[in-house]
């Protein structure tokens, strides 16, 4: 009985993951080489040409998504680090309150937050409208439908995933090390760059993992805040699946995205030490 316990515990959840994660990926791989259309049905022809067509038609969107993801992740590190530092080192007794304040906005639905930004940034909305009225901005100035709006939306929506792991890493920094550095006449900057920053890097690495992937695969920000020039790979996949019903090309794109992501993530985790990344992500 005792030897069976772990298997009984794993069984229900494991079967769920098998049936709805592993098996669907196999089906998606199968769909990705089929031919046909939604009216006459799809037939398996092992047509690898779907991949050639998918990459050929949409490599721009792939590259753009990676670029947006990289830019968004970099900006998120720059914005999140000082905030996490402030909470961890200057928060005093109110640390958890401040952390809760950072997380609270994320209790509003992701879509609703993005839509709210759309209203605020509208050409005649509450931010741009008054500035245009008093002549501070030209009449044709706009923020929506630009790359900046999409990347800004991505950063806004995923910032908490960067703040949290960095905060956890900073929180674990032994304050005696900081004191020791100061006692040995390190400057404030020296203490930071030689002691605090290296010790907090695992948090940054975990944050990168938790923001880069969802940012790159996002399509809501591009759809709501961006224009036709900002289409990301997520928008393409969503359209292929839900509007065009062109499942094979959608599946080929989606599988390519998933494979690239998982290979990248596992390589990244291995290079940095899986334990560090996993441990930080688990918090």
């Amino acid at each position: 009985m005792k030897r069976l316990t772990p298997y009984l515990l794993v069984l229900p959840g494991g079967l769920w993951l098998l049936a709805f994660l592993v098996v669907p990926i196999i089906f998606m791989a199968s769909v990705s080489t089929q031919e046909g259309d939604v009216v006459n049905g799809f037939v398996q022809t092992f047509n690898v040409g779907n991949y050639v067509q998918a990459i050929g038609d949409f490599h721009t969107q792939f590259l753009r998504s990676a670029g947006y993801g990289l830019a968004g992740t970099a900006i998120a590190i720059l914005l999140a680090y000082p905030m996490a530092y402030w909470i961890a080192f200057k928060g005093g007794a109110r640390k958890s309150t401040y952390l809760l304040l950072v997380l609270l906005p994320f209790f509003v639905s992701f879509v609703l937050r993005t839509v709210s930004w759309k209203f605020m940034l509208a050409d005649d909305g509450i931010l741009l409208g008054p500035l245009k009225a008093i002549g501070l901005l030209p009449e044709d100035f706009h923020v929506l439908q630009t790359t900046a709006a999409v990347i800004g939306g991505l950063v806004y929506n995923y910032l908490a995933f960067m703040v949290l792991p960095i905060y956890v890493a900073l929180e674990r920094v032994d304050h005696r090390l900081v004191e020791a550095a100061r006692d040995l006449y390190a400057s404030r900057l020296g203490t930071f760059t030689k002691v605090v920053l290296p010790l907090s890097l695992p948090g940054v690495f975990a944050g990168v993992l938790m923001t880069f992937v969802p940012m790159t695969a996002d399509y809501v920000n591009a759809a709501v805040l961006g224009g036709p020039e900002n289409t990301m790979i997520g928008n393409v996949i969503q359209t292929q699946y839900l509007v065009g019903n062109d499942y094979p090309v959608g599946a080929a794109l989606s599988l390519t995205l998933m494979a690239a992501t998982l290979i990248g993530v596992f390589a990244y985790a291995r290079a940095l030490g899986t334990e560090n990344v996993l441990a930080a992500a688990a918090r």
Partner: protein
Amino acid sequence: MSVKSAPAPVPPAPVPAAPAPARARSGGRWADRLLRIYAVLLLAWLFAPIVVMIVFGFNDTKSKSNVTWQGFTVKWWGRLGDYPELMTAVFNSVTIALLATAITTVLGTALGLAIGRYRFRGAGATNVVIFAAIASPELALGASLLSLFVSTGVQTGYATVVIAHVLFALSFVAITVRARVLGMDPSLEEAARDLGASPWTTFRLVTLPSIAPGVVSGALLAFVLSIDDFVITQFTSGPLTTFPLWIYGAVRQGVPPQVNILGTLIFGVGVVIAITHSVLARRRVP
């Protein structure tokens, strides 16, 4: 992967407070002040769209698009039922979240216990699959599920959304519980067994109470992930509408103030739960 909002984390163990450095120069104080101003500005940025959402629920808007301020009113609070499909969508969101949370909590707790406590054949593979589920883009999970449903002729709707929500919340619950299990003292269970408790009694009276905070955090996380979710829901919902799907569909014609009010109410419930959870967690820690 959408931990749109991780649950309020358990406050970490208190670090011995560093004594105020006596030799802080004025440069240091200026840096602290700048950092503080920065933190306030960043919080203002984070809260700006939330404040706008709440305030515009009170906007006496005449047109369908609720974009410019046209005076204060509370009339929309009495007219929540103006859009019956919106109320159905909210009802779907809440019931799906409750159902998905219940299933996920049971399966995820068992999974977390197994990978945190036991060594068994397949443990490595289980960990890899759990990690892959978290690391995969949610979009790809949705696309693969839809591939499965289309290929097997399953009609997408309420049940498939619940399946999808359980799938992507499961791993998060499992690692939350696992973290708690790893921090637990195994000698407590041994002591219970030595004193003659049956395995079930040991589980009920020793194991479960020790991992309970992890289970509660996991359940809250599952609920928030589910009620908030858009991407995997859009792929697996078919004709079904949820609150985020309804909003997304309404963006082009203009989102009515009722959406702001419902968003405010859901936000309010979330805030109350988060604060209660963090206060309770603080009380347990000392």
